[in-house]
């Protein structure tokens, strides 16, 4: 074995630690760390693993509620959904790896989040993906889209977890730094939930799954915790390759092992920072210690050093703690599934993680110091000077429309608004036969077999709003995700987030982050959808340019009766069309303004959370009373575009509608302006009185817009037809657009 480098401040700096952090490490140990220990400090104290810049702020998020079984801090959050079952969910980012190698980056992102779910004893039942790419005319965009989408499909389809929804947006701020966020939800029996704890003195610690190779060494500290630049190219060997087949075996074997009570004491996946993170966190959670011998770790390559083994991020591996009595049975189960299982150590009561290699102690560190003792920063924050400028919007400079047809035709084929079918059709969204509402409606609905219930799932974030006003943008993201759930007929029960930002060492970025947290906290509190877990991804920058702040929000909702699930498209000729909520909308930050006038400016229309809540309740009330046939959230593209979507997004083909809008002021704002708390519903004529009454008593305006029918969508304002489109033609243009954009 080659001689290990001398540990000192210099080497610590090369590992991404600061001088003070290094001193802190020396103090925690009471001596100079060994080389392996330095590696361990560097990953455990990296931004990605320690949340050192975000922790002080994340504390402000609401994490409690009557249904919450497990809030943040475990591998995934857990919410009670009745009948002794719980929903286990979380969202994770895999941004940097996906930029470097889109297929494998995205694939291993899916693999990672799925492990987080089944680690808890839950069987994953559905995933969502939230994607952000650069402008379509950027030379790498098409390549990245192709690779990322294929990677998500490749992994998710194989392992048999349906990808039932998500979002995709294109914006130049992601040209050099795409976002790949994946959400996954699983189902567990409440009494079979497992946690990542190394409990029980002398219990065996078992390594299961793939062998350890050199892949991904320093993935967490170098890729996920620093900015991108041209030198990132040389970081390429850190790319990991996913093996969904092995993960499928791992999933089945782990669930089988966890089924028998008491057989598995604790279990955690080896994700970022692999063996290091899993040993240290499991020990720290249990207030215990662990001693492992690296000679027993199954290796894929020769000549791996203790440093390599501890830091490897090879995929499809788990660490579990059994008992002396159950060890044999656990190993038999893994053997049945053709997986390697080897006892690599024991639980101790020293509070320390001791690592032995070839009879030599290569690391001996207090677990607490690595986790709770990690540095925490309240980094300086400052509102960027440009915030004022981008918020200024002088509409006088923007010419109004005489007619909305042409603009609507442009919008329906726009990269951010056209149908996502070309993407979600490559995802298996039906496996497990639970998908009651497939991708293509506001929220996906997944039935829970053996019950009447179902889960509704939606993910959202409009990062243009967040760029213009981070706090409001975050509130709007939560409100929209929750509104999507309400449109599908669900009640939000929990939220997970993936907070994608630039470099936290920059005060402007930190300010965006703090503002976003404030917005999320307020909205989740008001909408009674506590945060049960999430992920922070900083350093999303290229050559000093940060992405738009992108706090992606995924909300999970519950439907007591799956038969009450609603979809967004008009269903029957002759149904009446209503707008629930205010017609008032704003061009500020709208897709229309960006697309047609090339401007991203103004302050997005603010959400009044009490009104939002009232809207959701009115909507669910109407649904429960059987009054409505469809419900669709009005978001990007405004009222006119939402109406068009109601006409053309149904799986059975297009249906026309004749509508009339009232409104003073600008036509473009009336048609394409955006605002929260608005939903288009369709209802049979006989429901009208009761619907209006229900809205009235909830304080939610109910406005008749028109009637479903015919083969055209028409919109009249003040007696003039400002939109008149053949819906079948619109549907085919909207459906084909994304594929055409991607073909180039």
């Amino acid at each position: 074995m080659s001689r290990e480098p001398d540990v000192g401040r210099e080497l610590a700096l090369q590992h991404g630690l600061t001088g003070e952090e290094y001193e802190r490490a020396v103090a925690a140990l009471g001596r100079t760390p060994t080389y392996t220990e330095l590696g361990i400090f560097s990953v455990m104290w990296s931004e990605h693993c320690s949340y050192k810049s975000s922790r002080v702020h994340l504390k402000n998020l609401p994490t409690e509620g009557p249904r919450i079984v497990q809030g943040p801090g475990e591998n995934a959050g857990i919410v009670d959904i009745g009948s002794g079952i719980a929903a286990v969910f979380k969202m994770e980012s895999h941004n940097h790896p996906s930029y470097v190698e889109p297929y494998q980056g995205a694939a291993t992102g899916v693999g990672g989040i799925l492990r987080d779910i089944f680690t808890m004893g839950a069987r994953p039942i559905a995933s969502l993906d939230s994607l952000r790419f650069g402008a379509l005319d950027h030379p790498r965009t098409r390549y990245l889209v192709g690779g990322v989408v294929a990677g998500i499909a490749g992994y998710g389809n194989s392992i048999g977890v349906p990808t039932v929804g998500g979002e995709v947006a294109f914006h130049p701020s992601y040209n050099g730094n795409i976002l790949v966020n994946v959400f996954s939800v699983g189902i567990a029996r409440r009494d079979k939930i497992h946690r990542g704890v190394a409990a029980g003195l002398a219990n065996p610690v078992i390594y299961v799954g793939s062998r350890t190779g050199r892949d991904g060494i320093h993935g967490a500290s170098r890729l996920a915790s620093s900015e991108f630049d041209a030198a990132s190219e040389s970081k390429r060997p850190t790319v990991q390759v996913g093996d969904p087949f092995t993960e499928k075996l791992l999933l089945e074997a782990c669930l089988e092992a966890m089924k028998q009570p008491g057989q598995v004491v604790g279990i955690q996946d080896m994700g970022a920072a692999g063996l290091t993170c899993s040993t240290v966190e499991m020990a720290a959670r249990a207030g215990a210690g662990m001693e492992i011998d690296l000679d027993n770790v199954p290796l894929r390559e020769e000549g791996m050093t203790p440093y390599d083994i501890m830091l490897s991020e090879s995929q499809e591996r788990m660490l579990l703690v059994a008992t002396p009595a159950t060890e044999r049975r656990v190993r038999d189960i893994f053997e049945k599934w053709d997986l390697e299982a080897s006892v690599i150590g024991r639980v101790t009561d020293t509070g320390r993680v001791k690592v032995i290699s070839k009879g030599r102690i290569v690391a001996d560190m207090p677990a607490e110091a690595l986790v709770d003792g990690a540095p925490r920063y309240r980094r300086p924050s400052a509102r960027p000077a440009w915030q004022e400028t981008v918020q200024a919007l002088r509409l006088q400079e923007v010419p109004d429309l005489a007619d909305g047809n042409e603009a609507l035709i442009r919008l329906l084929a726009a990269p951010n608004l056209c149908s996502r079918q070309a993407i979600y059709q490559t995802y298996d969204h039906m496996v497990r036969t639970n998908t009651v509402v497939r991708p293509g409606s506001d929220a996906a609905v997944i039935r829970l077999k053996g019950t009447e219930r179902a889960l509704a799932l939606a993910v959202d974030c409009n990062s243009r709003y967040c760029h213009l006003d981070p706090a409001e943008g975050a509130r709007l993201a939560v409100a929209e995700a929750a509104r999507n759930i309400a449109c599908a007929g669900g009640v939000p029960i929990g939220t997970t987030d993936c907070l994608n930002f630039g470099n936290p060492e920059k005060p402007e970025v930190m300010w965006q982050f703090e503002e976003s947290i404030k917005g999320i906290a307020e909205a989740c509190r008001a909408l009674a959808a506590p945060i049960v877990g999430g992920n922070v991804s900083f350093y999303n920058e290229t050559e000093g340019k940060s992405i738009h702040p992108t706090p992606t929000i995924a909300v999970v909702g519950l439907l007591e009766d799956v038969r009450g699930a609603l979809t967004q498209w008009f269903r029957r000729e002759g149904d009446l069309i209503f707008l629930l909520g205010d017609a008032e909308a704003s061009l500020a930050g709208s897709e229309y303004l960006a697309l047609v006038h090339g401007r991203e400016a103004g302050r997005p229309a603010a959400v009044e959370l009490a009104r939002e809540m009232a809207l959701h309740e009115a909507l669910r009330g109407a649904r429960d009373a059987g009054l409505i046939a469809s419900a669709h959230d009005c978001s990007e593209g405004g009222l006119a575009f939402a109406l068009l979507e109601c006409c053309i997004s149904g799986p059975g083909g297009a249906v026309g509608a004749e509508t009339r809008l009232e409104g003073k002021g600008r036509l473009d704002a009336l048609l394409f302006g955006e605002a929260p708390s608005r939903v288009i519903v369709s209802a049979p004529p006989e429901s009208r009185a009761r619907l209006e009454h229900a809205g009235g008593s909830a304080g939610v305006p109910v406005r008749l817009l028109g009637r479903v029918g015919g083969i055209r969508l028409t919109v009249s304002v003040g007696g003039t037809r400002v939109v008149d489109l053949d819906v079948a033609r619109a549907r085919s243009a909207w459906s084909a657009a994304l594929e055409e954009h991607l073909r180039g």
Partner: protein
Amino acid sequence: MKFGIVVFPGSNCDHDVYHVAKHVLGQEAAFLWHKDASFAGIDCVVLPGGFAHGDYLRCGAMARFSPIMKAVEGFAARGGLVFGICNGFQVLAEAGLLPGALVRNAGLQYVCRDVYLRSERQDTPFTARLKQGAVLKIPIGHGEGCYYAPEEMLKELEERRQVVFRYCDAAGQVTAESNPNGSLRSIAGVCNERGNIMGMMPHPDRCAEEVLGSADGRRIFESILHGWQPARRLRI
């Protein structure tokens, strides 16, 4: 009736078929681990969808060597019903129990969506409840479902009426546009000469209940029930 559902490492529609057999049809169902080979009491063996053995190399290539495949062959030789869905079809084709091969979709992409199928014959145990020409709405979910066989083999298949399902449009017309993967002659499902082994790429297990958007797939499972034990006809 008892369905035996083969579980290969990598099968992922095993639970879906089990659910249909047990909870939708109310029949008995059992999982058959690929390393075992006991078929005691099984009336119909189903090879479910998924990606057996990772689908590495070629779909179904490695699964055909699982110990259970010998037993499947023996079971079929004795006249037992063998039904391959999606990956299960690929395995049966690789094993030579069904003619032809499934290759990469012409569009190169994995495709998950509803398609229409036309039933080509009623006199198989899998289609007893489907009139010839009946049209089913049914999901597909595959990346390698393009049916291929050399020209002479195709001719033979047609002569022996081994094509059980073809992709078609909602009206039952077989057109180029309604073929989702480039399958030759729009073939979606074939059977062996004797008619007791059938494989199809679309997923009847994904459309056996109205709540999932179509219950057309149930008719195939009901055909199996009906065709296998006529005595039970009245109970269905």
